[in-house]
């Protein structure tokens, strides 16, 4: 990474916290400790201000009117696309399609790209640690077109076995769809290697970057990935917007997803022709204000030394990982080398929901459940886990609060 010389540069989480007003609130009289960032991150004032400023000064529908505001709004919307391009280091902004989130982006690829290539018996290769959003669209292809889902296991530490993946890719594989970072285990997959192995067999690769784009520095050209999916709200941006990066060569040949306004060239009573990408895939009025918010969020994140942010998040993870060792009744699930700042665990004799309820009353917000990753729960033979996921604004003191709350939970339930 080019930022090597910057490692060690101070990233000041205390200063960053000032940007997130919600972090200073209390819940049940206790200071909020927000560790549910894997589900959705909080929004800095820079994002909220940008959306408000845009909505109060330049808002109108995009790509339609000839009037002043429509032109201004279109400019902001397209500028947001350019910001996403830069964030992912894509070759062209035309390779960035706005969606309503990560889920829609994957469904778009399933419908517009993969479905047209599937004959009964053709295969999609997935890992067992995928989020349901990177599973169910492929089940649709199984149900509707006879696709076969091939599952790649993870090792006991949660790491992905690239050799097993290689073995799963065969003559009938039409797509490899793997997450960049597991939302449960925190495992960072060797994306570049996965892409290379898929490409060696002529198979395109989709990466679910809903977590990956938050914690890793993504360069889609370096990865050579065919599709990369991100969502705004986990990136400190608004809900209702995400993005699909797709190589131009793919996008050009893909059929439309939703039909409606904005995505057409011409509509007559007898036929319809479609706009070029990315407009072809953006039917209807897009999330305009949200696009401005997403751009502000990416600018916000990019304004930090991201290697320093990552080092801070890794420090929180290591600190929490070490802290929970004192609890011999707690089992961490996912210890892959180099994993991102997501800590999932199971507590002996304590159900995740009971644990999360008690932590909540101590002000500590964690996620409990199957995390929309049921095949992974099955793999580790658990019904559910408790998950703490750390963001750039979290601190060691907050981890201490969680450890204290865990000890308390044990006292109540143990």
């Amino acid at each position, binding site marked *: 990474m080019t930022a090597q010389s910057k490692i060690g540069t101070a990233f000041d989480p205390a200063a960053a916290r000032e940007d997130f007003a919600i972090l200073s609130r209390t819940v049940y009289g206790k200071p909020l400790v927000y560790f549910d960032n894997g589900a959705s991150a909080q929004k800095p004032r820079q994002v909220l201000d940008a959306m408000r400023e845009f909505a109060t000064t330049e808002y109108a529908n995009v790509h339609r009117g000839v009037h002043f505001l429509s032109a201004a709004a279109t400019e902001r919307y397209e500028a947001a696309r350019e910001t996403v391009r830069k964030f992912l280091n894509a070759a062209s902004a035309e390779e960035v399609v706005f969606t309503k989130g990560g889920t829609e982006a994957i469904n778009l690829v399933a419908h517009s790209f993969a479905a047209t290539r599937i004959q009964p018996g053709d295969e999609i290769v997935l890992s067992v640690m995928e989020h349901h959003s990177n599973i169910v669209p492929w089940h649709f292809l199984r149900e509707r077109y006879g696709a076969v889902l091939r599952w790649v296991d993870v090792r006991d530490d949660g790491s992905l076995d690239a050799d097993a993946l290689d073995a799963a890719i065969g003559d009938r594989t039409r797509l490899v769809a793997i997450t960049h970072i597991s939302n449960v285990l925190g495992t960072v997959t060797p994306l570049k290697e996965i892409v290379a192995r898929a490409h060696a067999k002529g198979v395109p690769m989709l990466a679910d970057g809903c977590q990956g784009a938050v914690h890793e520095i993504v360069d889609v050209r370096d990865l050579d990935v065919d599709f990369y999916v991100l969502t705004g709200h986990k990136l400190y941006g608004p809900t209702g917007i995400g993005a699909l990066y797709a190589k131009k060569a793919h996008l050009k040949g893909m059929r439309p997803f939703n039909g409606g306004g904005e995505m057409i060239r011409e509509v007559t009573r007898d036929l319809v022709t479609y706009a070029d990408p990315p407009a072809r895939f953006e039917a209807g009025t897009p999330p305009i204000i949200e696009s401005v918010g997403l751009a502000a969020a990416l600018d916000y994140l990019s304004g930090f030394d991201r290697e320093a942010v990552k080092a801070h998040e890794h420090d929180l993870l290591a600190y929490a990982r070490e802290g929970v060792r004192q609890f011999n009744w707690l089992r961490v699930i996912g210890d892959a080398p180099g994993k991102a700042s997501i800590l999932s665990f199971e507590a002996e004799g304590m159900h995740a929901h*009971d644990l999360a*309820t008690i932590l909540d009353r101590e002000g500590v917000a964690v996620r409990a459940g199957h995390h929309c990753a049921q095949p992974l*729960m099955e793999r580790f033979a658990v019904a559910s886990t408790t998950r703490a996921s750390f963001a750039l604004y979290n601190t060691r003191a907050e981890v201490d609060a969680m450890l204290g709350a865990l000890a308390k939970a044990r006292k109540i339930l143990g």
Partner: protein
Amino acid sequence: MDDSLRDLYQEVILDHSRHPRHFGKLEHATNTAQGYNPLCGDRVTIYLTVDKDDRIADVRFEGKGCAISQASASLMTDLIVGKTVSEAERLMAGFLSLVKGETVEGLSAGDRETLDVMAGVSAFPMRVKCATLAWHTMKSALEGGEAAKSE
């Protein structure tokens, strides 16, 4: 400790969750149903023997879940044995009102007293479904055994 937490996880609840009554499978059950909470993945199976007088002669439950769902299932089995189907339905209606914090009607004083340990759930809206899963499953078992969801 937070009072509402103390209400929620009182000793009776924890005892029922650690040592559930009527736990296991019932051979020759006349009615069974499976319940599933899609939010947390918890499952419960209810087995009933309903005799020719429409009386619940025996009951068992199996499943894995949080302390609230296990205790609720255990308490329920304690209370419905010996009841007629319509009495069991009244019990369920009363229980649902109780955990939602609504006015409770139609419960006998004894049942009301037994179920009162579950009243603390009403302060935790996100946990009401945990408490009601077994009850919805019992209802669907009585109605003929469609899979129940905790809604």
